[in-house]
């Protein structure tokens, strides 16, 4: 594999990693506050659908993005209602929301567009256009002839949709918010010891809802990027397990922002490789493409098994807060 091909795979990795990373950070906010969220998948899916639908009708990717965030927020609100207000089982709520998204998107897509549960192909204005950084080359023939540094700059660093850069900026921002602000201190506290937060006179419910809302906004962006950046429209079940991979990345990262970046890039790379190459011939054995498909899941199981260091979730995670009696 030559240098340019490697760059192209890495370039694709970055794009594949973007929805994973944004969703992963969504999960990070939620789970750091003590609310498990296996509904990332569903939130991304409704956001992908509604953003594509609105972008297709209005021709504006920005309205699409807003609509996607809105849809994701509605799902967040249901999750918050179930797991915070009514102290229900957070896992079951997440599962329900994933199914709700899988069903609703197809039923509504068919009703609106009658194209077998998909939205129309998005035209230019309905998608996130690549941002060409200053001095970067755009045509592939120019890039092929440029020096390695210029190739790196033009192929890998330049030319992505806005959400890619937003996702990368979100990593330090999340770290700063979590560890350097009052909000972050309280958020981490409510995921570890909600009773300490409650007796300090801060609303546990308010903090947890804030975390769930942030998760909703982020999932909205992730889903919108999927349908209006990575691809040009919504197709049935287009998240294809990305929400679960993001969750896996979160565990892999042990609920820390910088590690989340690393984990998502790794999983993005695996997806990029699976897309670009079919069966991979390693000389001795030929690795079927299904192995590449399954690899993120297998890796996650290996990590969960604690063979690569133990992942300890926030102490109060998954437990509804009930005042001690």
């Amino acid at each position, binding site marked *: 594999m030559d240098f340019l091909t490697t760059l192209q795979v890495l370039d694709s990795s970055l794009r594949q990693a973007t929805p994973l990373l944004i969703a992963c950070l969504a999960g990070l906010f939620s789970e750091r506050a003590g609310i498990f969220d296996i509904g990332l998948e569903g939130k991304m899916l409704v956001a992908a659908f509604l953003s594509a639908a609105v972008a297709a009708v209005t021709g504006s990717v920005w309205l699409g993005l807003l609509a996607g965030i809105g849809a994701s927020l509605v799902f967040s609100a249901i999750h918050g209602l179930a797991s915070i207000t009514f102290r229900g089982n957070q896992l079951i709520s997440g599962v329900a929301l994933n199914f709700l998204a899988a069903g609703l998107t197809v039923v509504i897509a068919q009703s609106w567009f009658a194209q077998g549960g998909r939205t129309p192909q998005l035209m230019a204005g309905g998608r996130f256009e690549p941002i060409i950084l200053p001095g970067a080359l755009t045509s592939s023939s120019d890039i092929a002839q440029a020096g390695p540094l210029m190739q790196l700059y033009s192929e890998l660093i330049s030319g992505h949709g806005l959400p890619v850069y937003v996702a990368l900026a979100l990593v330090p921002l999340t770290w700063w918010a979590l560890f350097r602000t009052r909000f972050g201190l309280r958020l981490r*506290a409510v995921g570890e010891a909600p009773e300490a*937060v409650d007796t*300090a006179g801060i609303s546990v419910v308010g903090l947890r809802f804030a975390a769930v809302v942030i998760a909703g906004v982020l999932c909205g962006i992730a889903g919108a990027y999927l349908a209006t950046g990575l691809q040009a429209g919504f197709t049935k079940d287009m998240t294809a397990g990305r929400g679960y991979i993001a969750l896996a990345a979160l565990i892999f990262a042990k609920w820390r922002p910088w590690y989340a970046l690393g984990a998502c890039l790794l999983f993005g790379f695996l997806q990029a490789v699976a897309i670009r190459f079919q069966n991979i011939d390693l000389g001795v054995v030929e690795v079927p493409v299904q192995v590449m498909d399954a690899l993120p899941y297998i890796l996650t199981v290996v990590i969960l098994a604690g063979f690569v260091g133990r992942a300890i979730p926030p102490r109060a995670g998954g437990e509804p807060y009930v005042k001690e*009696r």
Partner: protein
Amino acid sequence: MTPTPAIELKGISKAFGPVQANKDISIAVMPGTIHGIIGENGAGKSTLMSILYGFYKADKGEIFINGKKTEIPDSQAAIAAGIGMVFQHFKLVQNFTVLENVVLGAEDSGLLRPSLARARRELEALAREYELSVDPDALIQDIGVGMQQRVEILKALYRGADILILDEPTGVLTPAEADHLFRILEGLKREGKTIVLITHKLREIMEITDTVSVMRRGEMTATVATADTDPSQLAELMVGRKVLLQVEKTPAQPRETILEVENLNVTDDKGVHRVKDVSFSIRAGEILGIAGVAGNGQSELLEVLGGYERGTGHVRIRGQEIDLTGAKSDGQSRRRRGISHVPEDRQREGLIMNFHAWENVAFGYHHDPAYQKNALFMNNAAIREDTEAKMRRFDVRPPNPQLTAKSFSGGNQQKIVLAREIERNPDLLLVGQPTRGVDIGAIEFIHQQIVALRDAGKAILLVSVELDEIMGLADRIAVMFDGRIMGERLPSETNERELGLLMAGITDTTTPHGHREVEANLAERHGEVR
């Protein structure tokens, strides 16, 4: 003219579902005093104070702070009114530093750095003023309970509390640590702070309070000046009738050795060495009491003898070695060897709260042939019948096997566990905290049952953090500190003071003992935990 009370509660009532926790309670606490609230478990003391702190909302009633009517809908309002509370179970974030815990909820601005800097300066000042020094950068999970309690007090003072409520603050402390706490409280009182002390220990009330209020079954039965009362009068007010503070028993008549423990060591799954080279024996017809502050290895000792914690060393029952590796043994095989176990925490371990009483009576003995219909199925009718008989013999109220465990009161729950374990006629009974959270009436009954089992020639290992209970029941007393047995004493030849020192890890009881040694020892203990 009398001064305005710092706290005045008028007609407070609070119900949890069908349970009336507080009934029309009125109380006035004078500023600059230490006011005790005493009552049995479940009398409603904690509920009342949690209402004052805004943790619960009263159904009825008014609160006056310094003469001013104050609404306290949440803890934020209580803090604003100058009230601080140290809960029985600390409300700290384990993986935060002391400083972060103090600042949490009392930050100055959106950014943390300036808040933390100010808190650091203030903590230093408070430490000087009240003998409350702590390492601000230590993680809570690394410091001992005594230190954690200081952090809780500092949290309240940092928020400018003038009124400090402490709920059962000495439950987790050694007598020496408790003494230190009392000196801190006296210091605070001198500075003009008002202190409310919730406890069920008469000794503490007599020692430190100026005024005492007694609660019984959700009602306030009396408020008196401490100087004008005595322990037996308070006990009577608590229970509503005359109580015997002493357990009636004849001297023990020990026979052959039942249990021998030799060099027992236990390391838990976190790698902490919990039980260190413990050796002792118990003979038929005697009660060995293990005294000590909670968390000094007693729980692990019970668990390893009960078959569900691993250990190394030797344990023999009637001379026969029992397996400690967990490979060939569990709670079931221990029961077959004649060991019964009343665990320390009946709601967590001893009972399954959503199971019927009859299912709980079979618990741990569900392989008993008498409970089987055939090779495949259990005989539920037989279990129900057996349960009803046991409930009657142990005076469980109501004796209905179909009720779930959670619908019984604490005392009746404990009687179900005791009935299950004692009626198996074991050679050895392990019993942990037999009367924790149990009303006084049931305490007497439970103590009688334990003594009766002893008199029937059984060996009994009693673990309790209540020194009074150990002194009253045990025929021999061993004191555990930091996983070791510090010494064995006969109840007739020792006193609470000596045992208290042993509980703090001081074996040399002949020299005059100052607090300095105790603290040096405690510091070492905290260091070791870290």
